[in-house]
């Protein structure tokens, strides 16, 4: 495991460097082509972060390359700054440009974000073209061959080596982040923003980080390659360059950094290899991209892995790994955050409410979805919430977990008002949830889903954890053990490495529960945990939830339409109808309540 982990991280760098070594056997022209290819591989890898992982469309790649190229060339040409220093400066400048682009940009998604990147692209090129005094404008800026520690990299072979070495170096941190927590978080954001936020991922900061990192690396690639062009001009970094670069990860494959890397390397070399067809290349390129989107939506990478990777044996939906230990043994594994004392739950001190909802109201236009709802959830108990469709249950959940703001009222968690606690921070207080539509992150493996459930997803934490994962440190191992313990607890240990999207609905619900318990929360909000699952699976899930409650002392609030399930699970039930609480009490009493029956059957005096 450890060896393959290290391989995952170093392989792209080794591949790039090996490519440059192998290139020494080629002629000078092909060495030049290979250098172009390696540079495009770096660009493709950087774009994998934005395009494949965060699924944002950027057409500012050309601008970032230009910023890197001019950012390194100008200090060298005008100020005689050493090449490597200028390279560092250009990389930092690229990161800054990414920040300037992303801070306003991430307020938008999809086409509007694409437009902002387009604007950025256009403005950068216009500025470069206009500042003739500094950049030489459209006539171009001649650049000398790079000099490092006195050695002049002027021949194609020398330059190829330099390019291969620097490129290998610069993609390493990128791969660490992509393969680590940050990359997983970005994919979680792309899969489901609400779920990502509920587990502590600050979406905008993650997207900004993605733009900063990827822009810095693209700028660096631009800076490395610029001297080889001898002369650079703004228009070769125009909109067309950006759009062609966008194709790298799309054609190469969106499933891993390799897609962008190989896609970039191959697509950049194609025009040189297919010289005789040069006129038709651009058109072929466009056809290739559109055909990829239509026929291989994940790019060629996923086509290849899908064809050659050993397909996991299809398991019966009922097949489930038996937990190897009692649930309270898991807690020592899961309790890596030291968030709670490891002890079996104490007496259910029924007087202390862990969650106090008072007077919560939420309206959408004239529709009052939740109207002055108040109830307490006692610590370590299971509290049911039932009611007909449109009663406001999920809206209430979204208010408690922080995805929606209430118009009035207050939610107290263990005595602390939650008004000013953003949704991303609530998991750290000890609150987690599941979603009505089983919001697993379908492109990630089960164990990665659960790792996100740990809630250690501040942008800084995610970056540090990425490094830990790459180094396979003790901490990373402990996290993984915790995730495996949680998977084991729900009976999914045997499917840990499979994609969450391939699970049956019942298993996806189990995975959601694993993700919700791994942080050892004090309360879990479960939104329709058994809707759509078979009777047997529902019974299994009930046993699981009861055990988690009994042995971990985790409190729960459960929305469910399946009333017998709710009655057999809960210590107490509140019933909502038309945004109000219409009954609350012991399950058996509530179900026989006249008002409740009326809400469900509609036993109104209509025939009168």
């Amino acid at each position, binding site marked *: 495991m450890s060896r393959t982990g290290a391989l995952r991280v170093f392989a792209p760098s080794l591949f790039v460097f090996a490519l440059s070594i192998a290139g020494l056997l080629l002629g000078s022209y092909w060495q030049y082509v290979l250098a172009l290819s390696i540079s495009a591989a770096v660009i493709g890898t950087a774009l994998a972060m934005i395009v494949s992982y965060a699924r944002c469309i950027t057409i500012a790649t050309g601008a970032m390359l230009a910023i890197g190229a001019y950012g390194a060339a100008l200090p060298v040409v005008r100020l005689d700054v050493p090449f490597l220093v200028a390279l560092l400066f250009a990389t930092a400048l690229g990161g800054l440009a990414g920040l300037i682009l992303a801070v306003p940009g991430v307020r938008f998604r999809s086409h509007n974000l694409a437009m902002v990147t387009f604007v950025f692209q256009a403005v950068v090129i216009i500025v470069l073209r206009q500042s003739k005094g500094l950049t030489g404008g459209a006539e171009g800026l001649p650049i000398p061959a790079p000099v490092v520690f006195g050695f002049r990299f002027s021949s194609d072979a020398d330059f190829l080596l330099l390019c291969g070495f620097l490129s290998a170096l610069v993609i390493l941190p990128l791969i660490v982040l992509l393969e680590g927590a940050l990359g997983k978080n970005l994919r979680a954001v792309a899969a489901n923003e609400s779920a990502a936020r509920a587990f502590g991922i600050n979406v905008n900061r993650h997207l900004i980080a993605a733009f900063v990192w990827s822009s810095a690396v693209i700028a660096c690639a631009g800076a490395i390659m610029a001297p080889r062009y001898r002369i650079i001009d703004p228009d070769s970094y125009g909109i067309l360059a950006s759009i062609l670069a966008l194709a790298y990860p799309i054609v190469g494959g969106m499933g891993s950094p390799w897609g962008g890397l190989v896609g970039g390397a191959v697509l950049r070399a194609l025009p040189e290899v297919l010289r005789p067809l040069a006129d038709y290349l651009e058109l072929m390129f466009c056809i290739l991209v559109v055909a990829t989107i239509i026929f291989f939506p994940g790019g060629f990478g996923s086509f290849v892995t899908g064809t050659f990777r050993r397909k996991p044996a299809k398991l019966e939906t009922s097949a489930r790994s038996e937990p190897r230990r009692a649930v309270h043994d898991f807690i020592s594994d899961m309790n890596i955050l030291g968030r709670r004392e490891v002890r079996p739950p104490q007496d259910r001190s029924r007087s202390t409410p862990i969650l106090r909802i008072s007077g919560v109201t939420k309206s959408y236009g004239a529709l009052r979805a939740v109207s002055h709802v108040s109830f307490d959830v006692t610590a370590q108990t299971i509290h049911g919430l039932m009611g007909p469709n449109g009663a406001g249950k999920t809206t209430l959940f979204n208010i408690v977990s922080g995805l929606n703001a209430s118009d009035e009222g207050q939610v107290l968690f263990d005595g602390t008002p939650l008004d000013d606690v953003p949704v991303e921070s609530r998991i750290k207080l000890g609150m987690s949830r599941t979603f009505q539509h089983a919001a697993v992150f379908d492109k990630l493996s089960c164990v990665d889903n659960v790792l996100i459930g740990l809630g250690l997803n501040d942008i800084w934490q995610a970056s540090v954890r990425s490094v830990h994962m790459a180094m396979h440190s003790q901490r990373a191992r402990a996290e993984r053990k915790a995730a495996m313990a949680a998977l084991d607890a729900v009976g999914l240990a045997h499917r840990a490495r499979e994609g969450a999207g391939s699970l049956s609905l019942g298993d996806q619900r189990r995975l959601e529960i694993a993700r919700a318990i791994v942080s050892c929360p004090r309360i879990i909000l479960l939104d329709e945990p058994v809707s759509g699952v078979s009777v047997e699976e529902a019974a299994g899930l009930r046993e699981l939830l009861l055990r988690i409650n009994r042995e971990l002392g985790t409190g729960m609030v459960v929305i469910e339409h*399946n009333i017998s399930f709710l009655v057999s699970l809960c210590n107490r039930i509140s019933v909502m109808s038309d945004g109000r609480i219409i009954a609350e009490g012991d399950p058996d009493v509530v179900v026989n309540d006249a008002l409740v029956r009326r809400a469900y059957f509609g036993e109104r005096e209509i025939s009168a």
Partner: protein
Amino acid sequence: MILQVSNLRVTAGPMIRVDNLDLTLEERGCLALLGPNGAGKTASVEAIIGLIPKSSGRVTFDGLDISSLPASSVVRMGLSLVPQLRELFPGFTVDETLLAGANAAGRRKAGSRDHIYDLFPRLAERRHQFAGSLSGGEQQMLAISRALMSNPKVILLDEPSAGLAVGIVRSFIDVVRQIRATGVAILLVEQNLEIASALAENCIVMAAGRVVWRGSADDAINNEEIRRAYFA
């Protein structure tokens, strides 16, 4: 019979929403489809009309197999749906909504707006108001009117009473009776047993995607089995 459904199965991803549903609706008849939340009633009618895909099963309407037709073609043949969420066009006036509804008549003769305004005087008063500005009850009337504009032979009514005040429900029952009197057959989806028994002769009770009870509407109201379906 005007509408026959056999062996209908609807799935959504890994989830089975409707399993093995059979039903028959007689000409001019009224059949109620009952059941608690999540029983698969809405999925059933949406699959019947072709709004969501069926994984298997056969639907015959007026002697023709419509199983694989898209909803836009089915409604033109005279099978209309009044959806649970009404699906109105907020920026259309009442009048314009009815004109859009008349489009579903296709080559058949469309309903007349005057007739609709006789049936719903409230809508006549508001004919130049935007659909989005109407009250819930008025929106429901408009949704039914839009379906009626295509002169359908069968209307699928999906939980028409949901969210309506008691007084409106009563007048709404009268309206449905009037529509039936004109010869339109109705498949009524309801949670509310009493409304169903006030309108339908026969009913089918679903739970968790399957049919759990069939029988006459009068028997349904005090049947313990149905009560269990709701609370189990």
